[in-house]
C-alpha cells in the first residue's frame, strides 16, 4: 500500500498515513486531487478506480470515506477487506465508533493502524492480537499516568 486517507463527506481530512516518502507539497497535492475525484463518484459505482498509475480502493462508512492507494499488482478485494478489518478494529476499541471518536482520539487511531499495518503491509490479521497489543499499551500508559499524577512526583512535574 502506498498511502491511506480518511476524509469526511465535506472533504476534510481526518487521518493520513503515508508509506512512501513524499514531500509535503506533493502530499497536499495528491490529497486534494484524490479527495475531489472520490467525492465526485456516485454511490452505485464500483469501489475501484485508476488514478495516475495507482489503483485506488475506497469505501464509505457513514460519513467517512476510507481511501487506500495500492500498486498495480496488489489485490483490490483484499484491500477492501483491509479497510473493513480496520473499521472493525476501531469499532471494537472505541465501541460503536463514529467520526467524532476518530477526531478526538486520533493518536489512538494511528496506534491501532500501526499495529495492524506496518510499512504498507498487513502485519497482524488476528483482531484479538491487535487489540491485545493496544490494551497492553494502554495499560502502560495508565501506569505512567497514575505515577505521573501521584503526589511523590509533584516535584518532577514542576521541574518538567
Amino acid at each position, binding site marked *: 500500500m502506498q498511502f491511506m486517507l480518511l476524509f469526511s463527506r465535506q472533504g476534510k481530512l481526518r487521518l493520513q498515513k503515508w508509506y512512501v*516518502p513524499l514531500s509535503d507539497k506533493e502530499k497536499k497535492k495528491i490529497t486534494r486531487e484524490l479527495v475531489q475525484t472520490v467525492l465526485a463518484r456516485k454511490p452505485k*459505482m464500483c*469501489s475501484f478506480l485508476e488514478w495516475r498509475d495507482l489503483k485506488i480502493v475506497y469505501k464509505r462508512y457513514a460519513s467517512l470515506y476510507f481511501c487506500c492507494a495500492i500498486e498495480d499488482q496488489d489485490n483490490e478485494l483484499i484491500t477492501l477487506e483491509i479497510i473493513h478489518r480496520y473499521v472493525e478494529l476501531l469499532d471494537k476499541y472505541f465501541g460503536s465508533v463514529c467520526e467524532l471518536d476518530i477526531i478526538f482520539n486520533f493518536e489512538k487511531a494511528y496506534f491501532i493502524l500501526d499495529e495492524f499495518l*506496518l*510499512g504498507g503491509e498487513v502485519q497482524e490479521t488476528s483482531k484479538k492480537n491487535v487489540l491485545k497489543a493496544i490494551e497492553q499499551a494502554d495499560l502502560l500508559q495508565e501506569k505512567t499516568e497514575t505515577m505521573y499524577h501521584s503526589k511523590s512526583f509533584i516535584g518532577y512535574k514542576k521541574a518538567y
Partner: protein
Amino acid sequence: MEAVNLLSSNRYTEKQIGYLFISVLVNSNSELIRLINNAIKNDLASRNPTFMGLALHCIANVGSREMAEAFAGEIPKILVAGDTMDSVKQSAALCLLRLYRTSPDLVPMGDWTSRVVHLLNDQHLGVVTAATSLITTLAQKNPEEFKTSVSLAVSRLSRIVTSASTDLQDYTYYFVPAPWLSVKLLRLLQCYPPPEDPAVRGRLTECLETILNKAQEPPKSKKVQHSNAKNAVLFEAISLIIHHDSEPNLLVRACNQLGQFLQHRETNLRYLALESMCTLASSEFSHEAVKTHIETVINALKTERDVSVRQRAVDLLYAMCDRSNAQQIVAEMLSYLETADYSIREEIVLKVAILAEKYAVDYTWYVDTILNLIRIAGDYVSEEVWYRVIQIVINRDDVQGYAAKTVFEALQAPACHENLVKVGGYILGEFGNLIAGDPRSSPLIQFNLLHSKFHLCSVPTRALLLSTYIKFVNLFPEVKATIQDVLRSDSQLKNADVELQQRAVEYLRLSTVASTDILATVLEEMPPFPERESSILAKLKKKKGPSTVTDLEETKRERSIDVNGGPEPVPASTSAASTPSPSADLLGLGAVPPAPTGPPPSSGGGLLVDVFSDSASAVAPLAPGSEDNFARFVCKNNGVLFENQLLQIGLKSEFRQNLGRMFIFYGNKTSTQFLNFTPTLICADDLQTNLNLQTKPVDPTVDGGAQVQQVVNIECISDFTEAPVLNIQFRYGGTFQNVSVKLPITLNKFFQPTEMASQDFFQRWKQLSNPQQEVQNIFKAKHPMDTEITKAKIIGFGSALLEEVDPNPANFVGAGIIHTKTTQIGCLLRLEPNLQAQMYRLTLRTSKDTVSQRLCELLSEQF
C-alpha cells in the same frame, strides 16, 4: 529537541509521544537524526518488547536512508533470533521490508535469509504473514536465495485452504480461513515459475482446484465481507493460474468462473472479472475461451453505468481482438467512442487505429475506419495516426483511388474536422487525378471544396492546403488560373504568418515561371515511404505504373528533354512519343537499339529503356561541333572530343599496326551525380564487320566533379569508311540526357609510316598506276597554308614524310602501310600546294581503291 528528550525517557507514554512526533514530523536535520538514531538504538538493544516495538515502528514509518544505514544490519538479527517475541518478530520483518524498499543496497543478504524462509513454518500466523510479505519482495530481486520458500508456501497454503473453519480460530475472517495470508502466499508463488517437483506441483494444483471449487459452493454467510474475502482469494488464485500458464484445464475453469462474474450483480466483481480477463486473453490456451464472452463484454460496454467498468470493457475488447472478430470489435469501439468520456478518448482512438492497421485484410476498410475515427473524435486523433494512414495510402496503389473518393465524399459534410481537411488535402493533392474523371469530382469542384474550408483551418493546415493547390496546378492545368488568383490574393501574399506567406509567394512564382515539365518534375507524386519499399524499386514502380494519361505524357516529355545547353535546338519531333528518332536516320545507322556492350548498369535502367523504348532508344542528334572535333582527331590522338555544360569527353588513344586502344574520359562537370550513365558504341552493320570494338562497362553512377574512364580496344579487320558513334545516356537531376559523338577511329589510325628513298617511291608510284588505285582531289585550303603545320599534319596522319623525293620542294610526299587484320595496304601520297590560288592538289595511290578514297577524303579535310 524536546522530542528527542522524550525518546530517551523510560516512560512509555512519553516515549510513545516522542516517537509519534518523530514519525510525523521527520526532517533531515542531521543533528537530530543522529540523536534520534541513538535513542532508537538503545531501545532496540533494550530487549523490552514494548520499547523494541515502538522503535521498530518508528523506523518503519520513517524509513529514511540514514536510518537504513544505521539499522540495516541489526534488524535481521532481531528477526531470526530465537528469543524475540512474536510481535517483535512481526514488526522486525516489516521494518526490514520497509528499509529494503527504500534502500535495497544497504540490506545485506546474509545467512539470515534461510532462517527467514523457515519463519514460514512458524506457529504464529501473524509472523508468517509478515514473513511472507518480506520474502515476496526479497524474492523478486534474488529468486535463487528464496527458492526453498516455494514448497513451504505451498504446503502452508494447502493446510489453510483445506482447514475447517474452526481450526484457525481468530484468523478466520467471516468463515474464510486466513484470507490475507492466503492472498500473500499466492502472491509469493507468483514470483516463481511453476514448481518442477511433481509432488509440490500436484499439491498446488489441488489447492487451486479447491479454491475454484469453493467459489462454486453456496456462500456460508450473507455478508458482503464473506464474499469479498472469498473472492479475493479466488482472484489471486486466478492470477496465479494465469501467471503459470501451464495447466489448460485450470485456465479454462478460471475463464469460466470469470465469465460468470461478468454478469454478477455486484459491480466490483464485474470490474475485477473484466480486468482479470484482460490478462487471460493474452494466454494462448484461454484466448479462445475468452472470445466466447465477447457478446457479454459488448453488452457491458453499452449498458454499464459506471465509467470505470466501461473502460475495463474497452481494454478487454482490445486484448481479445484478433483477425476473426476485428471488424466487429472495431465497430463497437467506434460506436462507444461517440459517447465516451473525454479523458479516455485519446487512448481509445489510438487503440482503434492500431487494431485497424494490424488486422486489416482489406485496406479500404482501414481507410474507412480511420476516416470515421477522425470524424467522431477528431480532436483526439494525434499526428501519428493520420501520418500513418497517409503512409499506408501512398504505399498501397490499390487503395489510392478509393481513398481519394472517400475523402472527397467525407469533405462534403458541412462540418468536418480539421484533421480530416489535412488528410483530405494531402490525398487529393496526390491522387486527385484518380477521381477527376468523374464529373461530380472534377478538379474545379475538388479545389472549391478544399478552398471552402481554407479559412476555417489553423496555420499548419493552411500550409498543407497551399501545397495541395500547387499540386493541383500540376495535375489539372485547367484550374491553374483559379489557383493563381487565390495565391495572388493579398490575404496570402501579405499573410501575417511567415510560412504561409512564403509558400504563397513561392508557389505563385513557380506556377508562373516554370514550364510544365519542370513543374511536373518538382511536383511528382510522392514516392512510397522507405520503410515499406526501397526507394529505387519505388521509383521504378512509379515510373512503370502511372495510371493516367497525363502522367504518362509528362514522364515522356521530361525524358526527352535534351538539356545540353548546346546551341543546337532539339527538334521537337524527337520527343514525339512513337515516331522513331530522325537522328537515327541522319547517321544512316538505321533504327538500331542501343546495344549495351556490357551488362546493363542497373535493372532499373534496363527496364526504363524497355518500357519507353520508343523514345528512350532515340539516339540524340549529334552534338554540335562534333564534325569539327572529329576532323581534328584524324591527325591527332589526344584531346577533348566533346564538351558541354554537363559533360566533358576526352580521348587518348594509341595504335599499333592493326590494333589500337582508346581511353575515353568522361568528366562530370556538375556537382550532381549522373545516374544510369551508359555510354554505348554504335557501329553500323558493315562497319561492325570491318572494325572490332571491345569495351568494358562503366560505373553507372558518376559523382559530381568526378571522371570515369572507359577503355576501348580496337581491332581493324578490314578497311572501313564509316566511323563508330559513341552514344551516352544518363540521368542528370531529374532529366534524361542523350549525347552522341562520332568516335574518331579512322582508317589512317592504322597507317604505319614507311621510310623509303625517292627511287623506291617513284617505282611504287608507277606500280600503282591503275586508275582505281589513284584518287586525286583538288580543293581549296581551309586553313592557312603553312609548311610546318602541313608537315606535322601529314606525320600526324600516320604517313612518313619523305624529303627530297619530289623535284618540287614545295610538294609533300608521304608513304605508309595501312595495317588491317586481313591485308596490308601500301599507300603513297603527294600533296601539291598552290599558294597563289590557296588550293591544294592531293593525289593518293594505294593498292585498294576504297582505301584510296577514304584516305583522300580524310586528308583533304585537314588542310
